[in-house]
């Protein structure tokens, strides 16, 4: 019986065992597939629903204006159009003191907002200036209270519209157009048309900033559970001993299990990628553009992920195999995932222009930068050789270490 046949026997048994467990199957395959569609569809829908729900509430606002001062009618009518219930009152503001520094008014506002009498307090007085109208204002609100925040937002929105009207009126009185004042130097045409990068290339550039990180994250986390189950789990359940009495070489056992974990983790990562692309292509069509990456770029990208998966799976299996229980393996591998994710996080911010060659041999960084370069279509042969050969070396060292762990005599423990 060939060695490959024995390895495949182990792998196929592990995969059969895996698919029989619907909970793991759902966690590893179904959730990744629907994760991004949920993020792209359900989350915006939910947020929109919540915002609409909040918008249906009326908010109660106290408008405090200078004694003897007329109310600004334009602002009043704007506020009345947005479910803002306005209660008027007058006071004498201290001159030469900004509105927010009126401590007594602030204390009163605090009290009335906290006891629910009002959601926000708008102080308003006429100011100095050459516009058609000049006003000064401040809004007292509670940033930790949803309704108070909503009241503040509605007031600010209506004040913006009111201010816009005053600006237009002032410009009109001085026989000026709006663009004459705000936009004397004008971009002539559309910004998008002037970018020589296609929308697909722009999308690839954006992808290159975050996809290597999330793939590192997915690969590292996807392999944890199956690695533990197939090593420490098997050890804890007592199934490993029976297996070790068979003629299978321990290195073949390691490779069989490694292949199973690699297939499971890769399927999980692949399905997450499919979910991401489906979300971009169909659910966010018109908002996001699918990235344009060359065939060579995709091949390098996939090959780099593969090398990373070999490395990660071997390391995680070796660590899990050293553990005496599933619990111990979990408590070791959980924090260890940070060792993979940390460099991947920093690798997003490494400047690719004139990048030093050593970045492409630094563990984890080499993978992430390799993926970035592949997606950007900015691959130098030297860099590609460096990241591929170093990744291969790390993968071989990791599998060698994992193989050593499988040869430990204390995999089956007991002195009885």
């Amino acid at each position, binding site marked *: 019986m060939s060695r490959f046949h024995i390895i495949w026997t182990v792998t196929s048994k592990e995969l059969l065992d895996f698919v029989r467990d619907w909970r793991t199957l759902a966690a590893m395959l179904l959730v990744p597939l629907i994760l991004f569609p949920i993020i792209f569809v359900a989350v915006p829908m939910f947020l929109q629903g919540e915002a609409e729900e909040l918008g249906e509430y009326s908010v109660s606002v106290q408008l405090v204006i200078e004694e003897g001062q007329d109310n600004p009618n334009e602002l009043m009518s704007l506020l009345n159009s947005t479910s803002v219930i306005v209660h008027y009152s007058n006071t004498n503001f201290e001159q030469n003191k900004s509105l927010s520094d009126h401590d007594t008014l602030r204390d009163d506002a605090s009290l009335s907002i906290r006891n629910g009498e009002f959601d926000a307090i708008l102080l308003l007085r006429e100011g100095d200036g050459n516009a058609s109208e000049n006003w000064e204002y401040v809004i007292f609100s509670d940033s930790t209270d949803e309704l108070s925040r909503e009241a503040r937002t509605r007031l600010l929105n209506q004040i913006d519209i009111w201010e816009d009207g005053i600006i237009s009126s002032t410009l009109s009185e001085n026989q000026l157009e709006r663009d004459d004042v705000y936009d004397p130097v004008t971009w002539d045409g559309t910004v998008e048309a002037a970018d020589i990068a296609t929308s697909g290339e722009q999308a690839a550039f954006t992808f290159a900033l975050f996809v290597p990180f999330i793939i590192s994250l997915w690969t590292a986390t996807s392999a944890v559970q199956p690695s533990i189950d197939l090593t420490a789990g098997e050890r804890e359940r007592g199934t490993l001993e029976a297996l070790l009495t068979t*003629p299978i070489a321990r290195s073949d056992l390691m490779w069989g299990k490694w292949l199973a974990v690699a297939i499971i983790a890769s399927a999980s990562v692949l399905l997450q990628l499919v979910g991401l692309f489906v979300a971009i292509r169909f659910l966010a069509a018109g908002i996001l553009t699918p990235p344009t990456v060359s065939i060579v770029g995709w091949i390098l990208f996939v090959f780099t992920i593969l090398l990373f998966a070999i490395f990660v799976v071997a390391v995680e299996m070796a660590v899990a195999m050293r553990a005496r229980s599933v619990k111990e393996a979990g408590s070791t591998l959980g924090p260890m995932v940070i060792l993979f994710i940390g460099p991947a996080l920093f690798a997003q911010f490494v400047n690719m222009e004139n990048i030093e060659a050593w970045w492409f041999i630094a563990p984890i960084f080499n993978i992430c930068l390799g993926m970035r370069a592949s997606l950007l279509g900015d691959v130098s042969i030297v860099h590609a050789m460096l990241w591929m050969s170093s990744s291969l070396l790390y993968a071989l060292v990791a599998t060698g270490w994992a193989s050593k762990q499988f040869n430990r005599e204390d995999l089956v423990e007991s002195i009885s």
Partner: protein
Amino acid sequence: MPSPLLVVDGVSKNFGDVAALSNVSIQLHKGEIVGLVGGNGAGKTTLLRLLCGVYRPSNGTVRFVDDGENKPVDQVRERLGVVPESTGLYSRLTAWENIRYHTRIHGRNDEKSWDRTHRFANALDIEDELHRPTRGFSRGMRQKIALIRAIAHGPDLLLLDEPTAGLDVTSARKVRDLVKQLGDDGGTVIYSTHMLSEAQRICDRIIILHNGTIRADGSPSELLKDTFSEDLEDAYISLTRDVARSEPVEKDSTISNILLGIFSRKNRSLNRGEEE
């Protein structure tokens, strides 16, 4: 006496500072059913793991000798069948899938393995359970499946660690009958148990292990004769009491010499008592 199949020569096994086995020498012959009897912590499981190559000896050798072959046992594992203490079944796989996994690793084709499996399952009255996941199986059922898994590929040497533990009376008898049949068919079996009556019923030879050393090795009748006992329980107690774990066992571990050693130590302590 037929030629030896397995030769254990001066084997010791240490786990750190703990000596689990000390200087164990045994020869197993073709067609023999050998009982390995000892209390908890005697070293039975350690010895079985050494015999199937899961553990490596700290000292000494375990060699498989057959048809001109003379190899370390871990190089001939395809000729062994093992039922470990934990049975080691995958709960999400069916009984047949568990068995098939091992027969495939042994290089047997599924059709022949199924025929043998079905035959043994029939003998143990569990043929209807072969396609059920082992998740809900009783301890006894798991033992039977583990036994079939160990013999489905046709091993020359069968190592059984407490194969009737957890079985009801009828099932235990069926297992013993099957093991006996395997022995009659020329198979060699090592049968670890702490039940002397069981060992007496099916074993041609009994090895008594105590504190990691062999206290006796002979047929049930020899054990009774040499210890002047009426039953094996008395023989076992007289062979295993008052012997300090740290005391070395004689290199020549024939039953007469071991007994001589024990009695001479007893006499020495008696003499000391008289002097006091």
